[in-house]
Structure formats: structure tokens, C-alpha cells
């Protein structure tokens, strides 16, 4: 046993945090989802079994939220992957420093605090004479209120595009230049080289980025919360993850429904675990593991 005590020491702090804030929350989410815990029942919650899930199945707003979630994930995913690919391809054509500068510019929204980023959107989308969009189009309106979906998708898309951009850029750099020279010698046009040589080689990175972003879009709600908070009006941009948050922390009726919120979160948790396990399979775990450098003592 003593020979493993060193490893235990090194692993202790990380494991403690992971147990406290990952493993325990997963279990607790599932447990809470089977209770009617809320502000009014805080001191005396009772078990309701599958009750919360049944309530979700029957709730009037569930179809709308599912539709919104699907719309949000699909539209944003297309923008993210498409724009990421476009940015990676174009910057690959440019002189190195110019390409780097453009990539840094597209990374800027990602590192900008979300509150500041959304403030900028609010400023640009304000009514005339203040907002740039109203100014340019001559159509004075609050664009976030009038076209919430376009803003939600674009705002999230501009952030998400940088993820694909970076991954695709390193994948493009890894393409042996021989291949492209050979294509050029054979008389391929730029477009043909991209379409016939580069894109097929990017198949795996594209698949990876799409899979990864699907999961993170499904569960992310920070920018929607700040931009529209699920509105305007009743649930017009409310997605599943945001709704879970609302149920638990800022219910319309002032009675925070932790149990119901947990049931909604539990759906995401289960999807998250399953999908992550699939990634592990698909993106080849054994290769990553390798043998440790052997201990002498």
C-alpha cells in the first residue's frame, strides 16, 4: 500500500474538488429531481418520484422550449462551424502576420467578459438615434426586442466561430504542402484544391467541432440570459438549459422550483454523460492513455 501513497498525495486535492463539484452534483441533481423541493417546501421537501418528469411531459410550455432549443442549437451550430471554417481557410491564404491579426480579432469576443460583450450588442442594437443598426438601416427599433433570434444566434455564433477557427487552422497547417503543390502542378484551381484536398482532410476536425459544440450549445445559456432572458414576451427565446435555471433561481411566480429545475437539468446531465462517453469511444481513448513513466521505487 505504501508504494501508492505518493500518488494518493498528488491526486488528493484534485480528486477532492472533482468529487465535491462534479460527482456529488451529478448525484444530487438526480436526487433533487425526485423531490418537490421549492421555496415553500424548503424545510420539508417530500419525494415525488417521477412526478417532476411527468409534469414536464405534460407542461404547456415544453413543446415550445424544445422547439426553441432545437432552433438555437442547429442555427448556431451551422454558423459556428461554417464561419469557423471560412475564417480558418481565408486566414490560411493571408501572410502569416495578417492572418494572426485577424484570428486575434475573432478571438477577442470570446475573451471579453460576457456582460461587456452583451453591452456592446445592446449599444449597437438600440433605437435611433443611438444605435448603429437603426442608424444604418433607417429603421428605428430595438433590434434585440424585434429580432431576438437573429441576435441570439449571431451573438453566440461570433463567440463560437473562434473555436472552430483555431482547430481548423491547426488542422490546415498540418496538411503536408506536397499535397497542395501536387494539386497545383496538376493544374487544380484554388477552389478545386480546397474542395478536393483540404476539405476531405478536415473531415475529422469538422466532425469533432460539431460534436463538441452541439453538447456545449445544448447546455449553455449565459448569453441568452443576458441578451433576452428568454423573452421578449412569453418564452420566445427560452431554451431548455435556461428554463432549468429559471425554474430553480428566478421563477416567474417567485417560488423557486428546485425540484423541477433539477429534473430539467438532470435531462441535460444524462445527455452530457452519455455524449461524453461516446466521444471517448469515437475519438480514441486508448491512444491517449499511454503507459506512465515507470516508478523506480
Amino acid at each position, binding site marked *: 500500500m505504501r508504494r501508492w501513497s505518493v500518488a494518493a498525495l498528488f491526486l488528493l486535492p484534485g480528486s477532492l474538488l472533482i468529487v465535491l463539484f462534479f460527482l456529488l452534483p451529478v448525484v444530487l441533481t438526480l436526487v433533487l429531481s425526485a423531490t418537490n423541493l421549492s421555496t415553500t417546501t424548503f424545510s420539508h421537501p417530500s419525494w415525488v418520484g417521477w412526478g417532476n418528469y411527468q409534469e414536464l411531459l405534460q407542461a404547456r410550455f415544453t413543446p415550445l422550449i424544445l422547439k426553441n432549443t432545437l432552433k438555437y442549437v442547429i442555427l448556431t451550430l451551422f454558423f459556428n462551424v461554417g464561419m469557423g471554417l471560412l475564417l480558418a481557410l481565408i486566414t490560411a491564404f493571408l501572410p502569416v502576420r495578417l492572418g494572426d491579426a485577424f484570428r486575434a480579432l475573432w478571438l477577442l469576443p470570446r475573451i471579453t467578459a460576457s456582460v461587456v460583450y452583451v453591452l456592446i450588442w445592446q449599444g449597437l442594437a438600440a433605437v435611433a438615434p443611438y444605435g448603429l443598426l437603426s442608424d444604418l438601416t433607417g429603421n428605428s427599433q430595438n433590434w434585440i426586442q424585434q429580432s431576438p433570434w437573429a441576435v441570439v444566434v449571431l451573438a453566440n455564433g461570433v463567440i463560437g466561430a473562434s473555436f472552430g477557427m483555431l482547430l481548423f487552422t491547426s488542422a490546415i497547417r498540418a496538411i503536408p504542402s506536397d499535397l497542395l503543390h501536387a494539386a497545383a502542378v496538376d493544374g487544380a484551381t484554388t477552389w478545386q484544391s480546397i474542395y478536393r484536398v483540404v476539405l476531405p482532410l478536415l473531415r475529422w476536425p469538422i466532425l469533432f467541432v460539431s460534436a463538441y459544440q452541439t453538447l456545449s450549445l445544448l447546455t449553455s445559456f449565459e448569453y441568452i440570459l*443576458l441578451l433576452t432572458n428568454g423573452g421578449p414576451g412569453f418564452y420566445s427565446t427560452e431554451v431548455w438549459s435556461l428554463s432549468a435555471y429559471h425554474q430553480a433561481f428566478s421563477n416567474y411566480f417567485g417560488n423557486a422550483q428546485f425540484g423541477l429545475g433539477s429534473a430539467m437539468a438532470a435531462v441535460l446531465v444524462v445527455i452530457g454523460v452519455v455524449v461524453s462517453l461516446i466521444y471517448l469511444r469515437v475519438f480514441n481513448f486508448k491512444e491517449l492513455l499511454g503507459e506512465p*513513466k515507470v516508478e523506480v521505487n
Partner: protein
Amino acid sequence: MGLNRRVWPWWAVLLGLLSLPIVAGYLWLVLSSLSNQMHGLLPTGGWKLQNWRFLWESVGGRPSIWGALSNTLIFAFGVAALEVLISAMTAYAISRLRFPGRGIYLGMILVLHSFPAVSLLIAIFYILRLLGLFDTLIGVILVKAALDIPLGIWVLKGFFDGLSWDMEMAALTDGASRWVIFWRIALPLVRPGLLALGTFALLSAWGEFILPYTLIISNKTWTLSLYLQSLIGAVDLTDYGLLAAVGLFYLLPVVVLFLLGQRYLLDIYGGGSKG
């Protein structure tokens, strides 16, 4: 890339057009913070230093911005220090030591790395209350560090795996303990990795919104994101200058840090965790 290079100016123009909205956005922020009023991107009514009054006076009964700034600094550096140290220890063990369940452990880290942690927020809220750490900076620091640690372990494991084993081997045969080797030999050798992860953690914690928003209530513990968010709801359109100034004040350190740490960072954002 060995493609036709003569056409690049056209691509640069196209990319420039695509990027215009981003440039316009940040330009708006800077100009707004300095001017009396903005019509689109045109400042009207002259310059207005009063937008920056939050630096020397309280705005609408809020606590001073300097308190929020120091909370944000404590939060960001606390998270970065914890995250780097703990990730490094764990990554070192996974990379260098043999222990039962190593494969499962690494598999778990990988799953957690892609696992969307925000869906755990309700349960985390509960656990913090149970621990008595709700509405404290230390509580949010622990949560933020914990949620980013799988990524950190993953990144640093790559760095440790890439190290040659010779020096450690020599030190081991000379009778040095693992602990000493970790601090004296391994850590200094993966300095680029530590810097990259540290910069990433600083940036990510500095801008963090949803965790403090959910886990902090009292305005004494506000970070800058909560300070700004409380203003956004309360100020009318004509005072966007104040909001922009606070936003810029909040953004500037990040831009500086980003420019300094950029070359370390790109790899991590490629494996990053935001939507």
C-alpha cells in the same frame, strides 16, 4: 498553405468586411465611454469625462468600483493559482506514477473535460449552502477552479508527457523524493504550459458571470461583472456612456493580458470550454 498567393489581397478585403461588425462594436465601446452621446458611431455633444465618475464616486448607492475590482482580482488570481497548482499535481501523477485505477481516472477526467458543467449549477448552489460557502468569494473560487480543472489536467498532462525522463530518473536514483522532483525539476520544465494555463484561467475567471451571479448575493462580494450587470438594468439609454466606461474599465486589463499571453494561449482555446 501552398495555394495561389497572388489573390490574397482579395481574401483580406473579404475577411475585413466580415470582421467589420466586431471592429464597430469595440470602437463603439471606446467612443461611447468618452463622449456625451453616440449617434451610431458618431460622438455628438462633445467629450464627457463624467462617464468615468464611477472611479471617484458611488453610482446610485452601489459600493465603490474599487471594491468590485479587488474582489475580481482576488477571484481571478485565486482561481488561476488553485487551478494551475492542482492541475499540475494531478497531471504529474497521471503522467508519471503508477496507481490502481489510473485508466479509469484519466477516462473520468476526459469525460468531465467535455461534460457541460453549467447543468450542475442547481446542485452546486445546494452544496455551497451546505458547506456554508454560499455568498463567499472562496466558495465561488473553489467552484470555478474545480469546473476548469479537468481541462487543466488534460493540457498539463500533455506537457508532462512530452518531457524527457532522464533528469527525473537521475534525481530518483540519487534518492530525491517525488515531491522534490515535482517542484524542482518537473514544474520548471513545463513552465510554458503553466503560463498558458494560468493566463487562460485568469482570462476565463476575470470575465466569469454566471457563477458569481448565481452564488453571490451581497454587493460587498460583487465582482466587476455583477457591478456592471446591476448598472445595465438601472441606467437609461442616454447614459450609455457610463455603462460603456465601466465596460471598458473592465475590459482593458483582459486585452493587455491577452496580447501578452497570446502565443501561449491558442492551443488551450482550441480545446476550450465555452459555447
